[in-house]
């Protein structure tokens, strides 16, 4: 029996890619293993120790609080921050892309605020407002600006002949906005969401570290670190990475789906 690779076969291609991913991750784990042995330090646990810590965290939680509770606390804050950014950035971006004078008015304000690292806001929001809403606002900032700039860009990138076509079909300003500009900005909005979710997830983990009595994964990992529980710390890194991959792949899937629906693959 012989196997012949056929690059036109979808399953063969998928299989090949899966194989490459497996090999790549294996190389990574092996390299980590070698480093942990060479370093001979408790700070870098071996993959086996980390795996054990991961299992025990998922089974028993940490400090009497279940793993699910830490994870859901972070995801909830993340989702809240995202929703707030979405409901503010999308309409604002559409309006700013549509109205030149308003855009000129708001752009300086945005340009002053945008370069501030979202994490710079963390102490302000967390100590200044509250431990609960603070991290959520940091996520909001992290997602808001990439989303806003993408939406504005999307409205500006609109094909001028689509606008002409709509006008010759009798479009009012309102129609131009609802029937042409908003729909043609949707793929850019999706791209903004994708970028924003990536930034937002980094923000939530970091922001939670400021919270001395939080439940999130960020709090959890910093507490483990302080207590020298290195295998658990590494296990948390894996969880954070997995959740990050999950959110970005979800966003990527959504983006592809929407682009297809909008006829702009």
């Amino acid at each position, binding site marked *: 029996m012989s196997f012949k690779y056929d690059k036109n076969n979808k399953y063969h291609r998928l299989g090949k890619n899966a194989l490459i991913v497996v090999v790549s991750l294996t190389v990574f784990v092996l390299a980590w293993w070698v480093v942990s042995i060479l370093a001979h330090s408790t700070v870098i646990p071996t993959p086996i120790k980390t795996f054990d810590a991961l299992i025990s965290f998922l089974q028993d939680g940490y400090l009497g609080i279940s793993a699910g509770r830490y994870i859901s606390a972070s995801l909830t804050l993340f989702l809240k921050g995202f929703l707030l950014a979405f409901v503010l950035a999308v309409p604002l971006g559409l309006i700013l892309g549509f109205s030149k004078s308003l855009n000129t008015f708001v752009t300086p304000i945005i340009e002053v605020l945008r370069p501030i690292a979202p994490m710079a806001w963390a102490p302000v929001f967390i100590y200044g407002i509250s431990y609960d809403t603070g991290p959520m606002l940091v996520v909001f900032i992290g997602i808001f600006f990439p989303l806003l700039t993408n939406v504005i860009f999307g409205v500006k990138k609109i094909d001028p002949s689509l606008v002409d076509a709509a*006008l010759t*079909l009798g479009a009012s300003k309102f129609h131009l906005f609802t029937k042409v500009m908003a729909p043609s900005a949707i793929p850019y909005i999706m791209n903004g969401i994708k970028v924003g979710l990536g930034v937002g997830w980094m923000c939530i983990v970091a922001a939670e570290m400021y919270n001395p009595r939080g439940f999130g994964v960020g709090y959890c990992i910093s507490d483990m670190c302080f207590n020298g529980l290195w295998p658990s710390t590494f296990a948390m890194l894996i969880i954070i990475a997995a959740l990050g991959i999950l959110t970005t792949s979800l966003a990527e899937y959504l983006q592809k789906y929407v682009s297809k629906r909008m006829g702009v693959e």
Partner: protein
Amino acid sequence: MFDGSNKEQTSDKGSVSYAEGEDFIHIENLSKTYKRDDSETVAIEDFSINIKKGELISIVGPSGCGKTTILRMIAGLLEPTSGTITVAGHPCDKPGPDRGMVFQDFALMPWRSVIKNVELGMEMAGVPKEERRKRAEEYISIVGLEKFKDARINELSGGMKQRVGIARALVNHPDVLLMDEPFGALDAQTRNLMQAGLIKILDKTDQTIIFITHSVDEAVYLSDRIVVLTKRPAKIKEIIEIPWPRPRDRASPDFTALRKHILDELEKENVLDD
């Protein structure tokens, strides 16, 4: 399909109805100057023409001479520097569905299906859903796309896309159809098919059409009259009447002679002397 019932709708704006062959579009002393800081470019100078109802007028001229500028002013997308344009008695100061436009790059909404694209104008005019669907289906069948009415735009070939573009404009019963190099993005074979299709539509209606083209062959094949423009600033160089019935034989001596004449005239304009 293109019967009297459609035509009534064109005149429900309280305007006088025009019979085929009557002067219908008046363009007088039309000029367009583009101003930018302290430089001025005169694009169109003193362009006047009367167009009859049911006529197909082509405008040909050297590249970049401002053919499209004239069309965009009729569409109301661009304001003339001076001069007046009236279509069916109405001034063309802003765009509207009474002057349907067909674009070289199709300008279809990719997120809408074929039928939804054709319905767009009626949707914005508040035509009830049932009626809108019925009329859209009628025009989709005129352009021969019944099987594709629910298709997405990116599933269509270039020729099919432009047929959607034509149906989208015609469904609103425009007084005039403004076609801006409509077949310029298509391959030669599709182009010929589209020209034949347009002739069929002309046979069934008294649709007035202003047609911008690069192709002299296309202009001679389709037009009742051809307006030849000079290079910038564009003025009317010559207006040629073509009384021959359609469809026309591209190989006939008259056809080739006229084509050569126009090409020669354009050649003189294309001399690089500045």
